[in-house]
């Protein structure tokens, strides 16, 4: 479901001015974003985590490109794979521009997610998906910086040892290193592709 940019959700006179500017600017500004825009954009909290191969991944090194951050765990059968599969489809639609979109999967379950598991999980979707691991403390810091909740829960009635309830947003970091968009679960592939294309064009 497309959400209105918060910049348009203001008092009427301001809204009229914004609209007037948009209309005047016309195609130069392009179409506005279709999904959860953060206004004003703020610098994306930097972090360093490790890939399954042990390489360091530092967010700030990816300026100039768009980074799509997701949080999940490899035992998750429904929400996490759906998000990764959809982002894989977004990459396919972007064509050559997909080189500048990095899809990142950060585990919220360091107890069970080994590097091998994370590697196999991300590769099931697309070899370009970057799985990231760290210590429980490092991962908790990243979650806190992005406002992600992750709660381990033992659930009666299932043979799964435990499940992890977690936020299911996709956090989009623009080429200037700013946290710009948050896609809620269920955002259409069309809308995600549209918004990421806008960021890559700038």
């Amino acid at each position, binding site marked *: 479901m497309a959400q209105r940019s918060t910049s348009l959700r203001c008092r009427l006179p301001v809204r009229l001015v914004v609209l007037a500017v948009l209309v005047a600017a016309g195609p130069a500004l392009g179409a506005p974003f279709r999904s959860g825009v953060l206004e004003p954009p703020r610098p994306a909290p930097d972090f360093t985590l490790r890939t399954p191969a042990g390489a360091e991944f530092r967010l700030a090194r990816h300026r100039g490109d768009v980074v799509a951050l997701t949080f999940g765990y*490899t*035992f*998750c*059968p*429904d*929400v996490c*794979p*759906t998000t990764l*599969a959809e982002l894989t489809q977004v990459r396919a639609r972007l064509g050559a521009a997909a080189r500048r979109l990095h899809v990142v999967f950060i585990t919220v379950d360091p107890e*069970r997610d080994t590097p*091998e*598991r994370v590697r*196999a*999980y991300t*590769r*099931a*979707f697309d070899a370009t998906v970057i799985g990231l691991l760290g210590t429980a403390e490092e991962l908790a810091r990243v979650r806190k910086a992005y406002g992600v*909740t992750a*709660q381990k*829960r033992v*659930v*009666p*009635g*299932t*043979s*799964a040892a435990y*499940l992890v*309830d*977690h*936020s*299911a*947003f996709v956090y989009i970091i623009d080429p200037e290193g700013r946290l710009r968009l948050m896609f*809620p*679960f*269920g955002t259409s592939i069309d809308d995600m592709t549209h918004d990421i294309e806008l960021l890559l064009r700038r």
Partner: protein
Amino acid sequence: MRTIALALSLAALAALVVTRSPAPAAAQAASAIRLENPWARRAPAQGGHGGANGAAYVTIRNDGVEGDALVAAASDAAARVELHETVKDGDVMKMRPLPKLGIAARDRVEMKPGGHHIMLLGLKRDLKPGDRVTLTLTFDKAGPMSVEAPVR
């Protein structure tokens, strides 16, 4: 004369339709459930040691006049199969197991990502696009029904 013959044959036809109709209806009572659009999400088996999960989705249509319920599920691709539901609680997505899934008479339930799903626990093999998994869904009234779900 012709009109009478036509009327008679129409009446015969009508009688035929009337007498025929209860038979298929009775035969259908046991199989009023239709399984549509089954598919499973790609997932790695993580070495096949029972530590990986997957999900499958199917739309269940109940053409019958009585409600039914999905009460159990099994698959050739997983050690255990459970029925789960993902629910949104604020910004957080939570999964919970469902003991059964009811389908009212002349109704349908569409499983989909972020909603009802069939959880495949302990994958026995990688689920890769193009593969197929067999799902056996057992209904309270309709009994067990199998369906082949392509992996996407």
